[in-house]
């Protein structure tokens, strides 16, 4: 809180952080379109998630333009986008909104902001090379239908799974799932 000349207290206004803005712009393909946004709000109006929640696409993009790192990275809103691309299709400025959200989410994860449920998915990946765990009743059904019990994927294929895990380790994914920083 700061105090205005008239003596009334004011909420502290976040200062723009151009260094963070630069990081988003250079954070991956699509990031370079960040500053093209002129805040028309077509994205927010097109968002099926925003229709039901307080998630506002336009606002996240504005915050990214201003570099308001601390307002973006820990927020739950960042994870309400279903990556449906409706906003991207309609954006008159061709801002790669979904790509920018991916960049911001990657930054959030590196800082340790990750839901437990999402860490679970990371664990499934490290274990089976799949997002969902293996269920015994489905394996039984596979056999009953005449399919091999294990699909011809990383599931049940030791060598393939070793390679798959090695790639994840090479990229630092295993450490990332344990709490951020690569």
């Amino acid at each position, binding site marked *: 809180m700061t105090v205005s000349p008239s003596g009334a207290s004011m909420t502290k206004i976040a200062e723009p952080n151009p260094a963070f803005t630069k990081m988003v712009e250079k954070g991956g393909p699509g990031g370079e379109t960040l500053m093209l946004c002129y805040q028309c709000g077509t994205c927010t109006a097109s968002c099926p998630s925003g229709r039901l929640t307080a998630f506002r696409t336009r606002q996240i993009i504005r915050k990214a333009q201003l570099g308001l790192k601390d307002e973006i990275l820990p927020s739950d809103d960042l994870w309400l986008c279903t990556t449906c691309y409706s906003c991207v299709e309609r954006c008159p400025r061709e801002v790669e909104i979904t790509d920018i959200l*991916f960049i911001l989410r990657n930054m959030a994860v590196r800082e340790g902001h990750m839901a437990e449920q999402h860490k679970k998915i990371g664990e499934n990946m490290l274990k089976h090379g799949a997002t969902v765990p293996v269920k015994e009743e489905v394996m039984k059904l596979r056999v009953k*239908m005449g399919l091999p019990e294990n699909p011809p994927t990383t599931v049940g294929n030791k060598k393939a799974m070793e390679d798959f895990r090695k790639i994840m380790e090479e990229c630092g994914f295993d450490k990332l799932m344990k709490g951020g920083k690569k």
Partner: protein
Amino acid sequence: MSGRYAFFLGCVAPLRYPGIELATREIFKSLGVELVELEGAGCCPAPGVIRSFDQTTWLALAARNLALAEQKKTDIMTICNGCYGSMFEANHIMQHHPEEMKKVNDVLSKVGLKYNGAVKVRHFAEVLYKDIGMEKIKAHVKNPLNYNIAVHYGCHFVKPTRVKHLDDPERPRILDELVEATGAKSINYKDKLMCCGAGGGVRSRDNKTALRMTEEKLKNLKKVNAQMIVDVCPFCHLQYDASQNDLPGYNIPVIHLSQLYGMAFGLPRDKLGLEAHVTKVNL
């Protein structure tokens, strides 16, 4: 590289709805199209979660799948919008950003693989529509279907159109035509192109929000008396199918296009894996 396709299974189809896998194998066999087994392929990896966590890992794992298909000298064919979206976009990034391709190949070299960018990523519905064609499909329909079907495109089949150029993002037709080739009617409904709610890691992180989106869709489907939902994505399939267990008052069967074609081509019911469905299929 066409005429034969490396069959990419993904995770949800083989591990939750094996009927989708088997029906796909059977309908392509009927159509005389060779599906090459892609032994040891992994997760695509999932665009909503893994790409959200770490793009480098996402890109490298997608490239591993593409490199495996490249070794077989085939394009890769998916039965899932998520797998299609992930590998299509990853491929696009590598083909247009040499520095990303180099980074990825440095990682792949640790497991003795290299990707040169020669593979095309195809969605099975697109293969049916473009490579096989309506006439041939219609000729294979042994049991013409007579249902009112609500088609669900999902998000990553035609979008983003800036890289895919498949169909119109606001008024696509491909799936409607593919469904109507069986004799069924594709009915219109409010917010037809809206997301099922599952993507982007929302289903796992915030199931309530995902459910509310699904309910919105189901409400609109009920209003027009849809007899079934037909999807082309096992993840949308899972979301619609499993969610109806948590949403009282809904009982709309969820059928993957491969299963619908199985019905129309006269495949025995036990090859469709319908017993894995949470929402019972009484059709």
